């Protein structure tokens, strides 16, 4: 018996205005259903549409056509507030580890909890715990400017996990890291999966792909292969 679908992209296309006269077709009629508890790796060359698909699954963007359904709710027709509520059930590790500059690591990690009305003391405790999980307990008071690339990426993982999300989306989480840091981040994502969370990563990292239970390959905005393990 297969697990229920948590998030699905149904025949989605996404077109962007490019620098030239012709639009850029980032996704062309992609369908992907992600079951609860799955660890899905999206692979494919740069520009194949991995990040765009991840943004659609995470309610960060809207498709030009097709539908994205999260836990039965159609995100295309959802209001901004409803999409925000969905985003609160998702933890996202962004490519490049964007942060709020000059804000301490603990406050950066706790930022998702601010909007949810979590009391300051609890927020700090949860943020410190998340930082501890990613090995950054001693950097809690440091601003992002003082963190290395690997530390920033782990901070991004801590921020994604602090809200206890059902779905974790990670966009190239190990791309700019050395082997040791990449392994640490991969371990964190594996741990999140082991805790029962659904994980979808877009990656070129074979070591990370090896941990996935399903590998979906994209090329030129289309799914060209879908392998389950």
């Amino acid at each position, binding site marked *: 018996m297969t697990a229920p679908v948590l998030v699905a992209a149904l025949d989605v296309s996404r077109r962007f205005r490019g620098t030239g006269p012709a639009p850029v077709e980032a996704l062309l009629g992609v369908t992907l259903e992600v079951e609860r508890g799955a660890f899905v790796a999206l692979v494919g060359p740069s520009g194949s549409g991995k990040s765009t698909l991840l943004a659609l699954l995470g309610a*960060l963007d809207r498709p030009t056509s097709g539908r994205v359904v999260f836990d039965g709710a159609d995100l295309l027709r959802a209001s901004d507030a409803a999409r*925000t509520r969905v985003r609160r059930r998702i933890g996202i590790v962004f490519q490049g580890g964007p942060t709020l500059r000059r*804000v301490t690591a603990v*406050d950066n990690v706790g*930022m998702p909890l*601010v909007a949810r009305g979590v009391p300051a003391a609890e927020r700090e405790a949860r943020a410190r715990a998340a930082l501890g999980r990613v090995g950054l307990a001693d950097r809690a008071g440091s601003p992002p400017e003082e963190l290395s690339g690997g530390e920033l990426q782990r901070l991004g993982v801590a921020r994604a996990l602090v*809200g206890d999300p059902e779905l974790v989306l990670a966009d190239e989480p190990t791309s700019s890291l050395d082997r040791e840091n990449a392994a640490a981040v991969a371990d964190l994502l594996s741990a999140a999966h082991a805790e029962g969370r659904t994980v979808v990563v877009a990656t070129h990292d074979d070591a990370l792909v090896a941990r996935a239970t399903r590998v979906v390959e994209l090329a030129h905005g289309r799914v060209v292969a879908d392998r389950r393990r």
Partner: protein
Amino acid sequence: MRSALSVARTGLDAVAHHRLRSAVVVACVVAALLPYLVALGVGHGLLDQAEVSLAEGADLTVTGLRFGRPAPLDLAAVETVRRLPGVTDAWPRVVGEVQLGRDGWPAVVVGVPADRLPASLEAVEGRLFAPGATHELVVGRALASRLALRVGAFVPPFYENEHGVKVSRVVGIFRADAPLLESNVVLTSVETALAVFAQQGVATEVLVRCGPDYVPEVRRAILALRTLGGDDGHGPVRPRVVTRDDARAVLTASVLHREGVVGLHFLLAFAVGIPLVLVTSGIGLAERRREVGLLKAVGWHTDQVLLRAGVECLVLAVLAASASVLLAALWLGPLRGTGVAALFLDATDTAPDARIPWRLTPVPVLLASAVALAVVLSGTLVSTWRTAGASPAEALR
């Protein structure tokens, strides 16, 4: 509620975290707001001063016109006016300009009876001139300082006339509630003033006090007089009467006109200032866009993002308005409204040792604060709102 407070707190933190961005926005608002506040301060100070002068002055000021030009009044006119029904007092005043000191500094000699000096006027050194005494001068504090005149100093003859060369003596230095008087006025008796200007039996104007509610009637009666001049063969001198309300209207209109001119510049400055703030806050525009995208991506509602930006704007506006008011007080006080005061006053009144009247009232300050808030909001909140309304992926891209 707790969530809103926490979100608002992050807005406050954002001001401190983005010091350069905050400083640029505050500096832009202050640059536009400050000259306006200084102008308002000087304008209100002048109106206050005018009010003091008017309160201590006469109900009616009578001057003479001959062929439509100002002409002196015969001193006998004082008695004529004094006898009119409703008049409680009338006295002559002689006013004329002279040049004093090596540099020919312009000053105004005012000759009045000793017992008609303004009540707020006091001698800070020496004494006021004595009734009946001649060639005794009482000099304004700023003017005395500028010309290095002390009590007991002799002032060379203003000019020689048919009565011979007369030397006057400074018997006192005065201060007044209307500080501009201190900067260019020399007070003396009517007789001395007439001697200074080589005149006899005339006055520049007659000042009149009336009984309660008699002002219109007395005004009509004076205007009905055929002539107030002596029969010197040059034709009659027709009376011209200015009431206290007329004078107040003229003074107020003059100040308001200048305030209006400054206000127009202020509006123009803000018209430029708003885009300026928009552009200059471009220092942090990309960063703000990324922040908004990130906050939306991690589960912030659009209204929470706007609340955060709104609190940041409010804090910046309060900082900008407070800084503007403080700097305006500094500009008006120790720096004496340099640059702006000259729009309202002539060079004599804005000389380094003259006191510049000023007052910052709450209403313009609050109004200026509101405008500051509007500018900062328009410069920040609009861009935040647009970004928050777009997809987070686009903002983060």
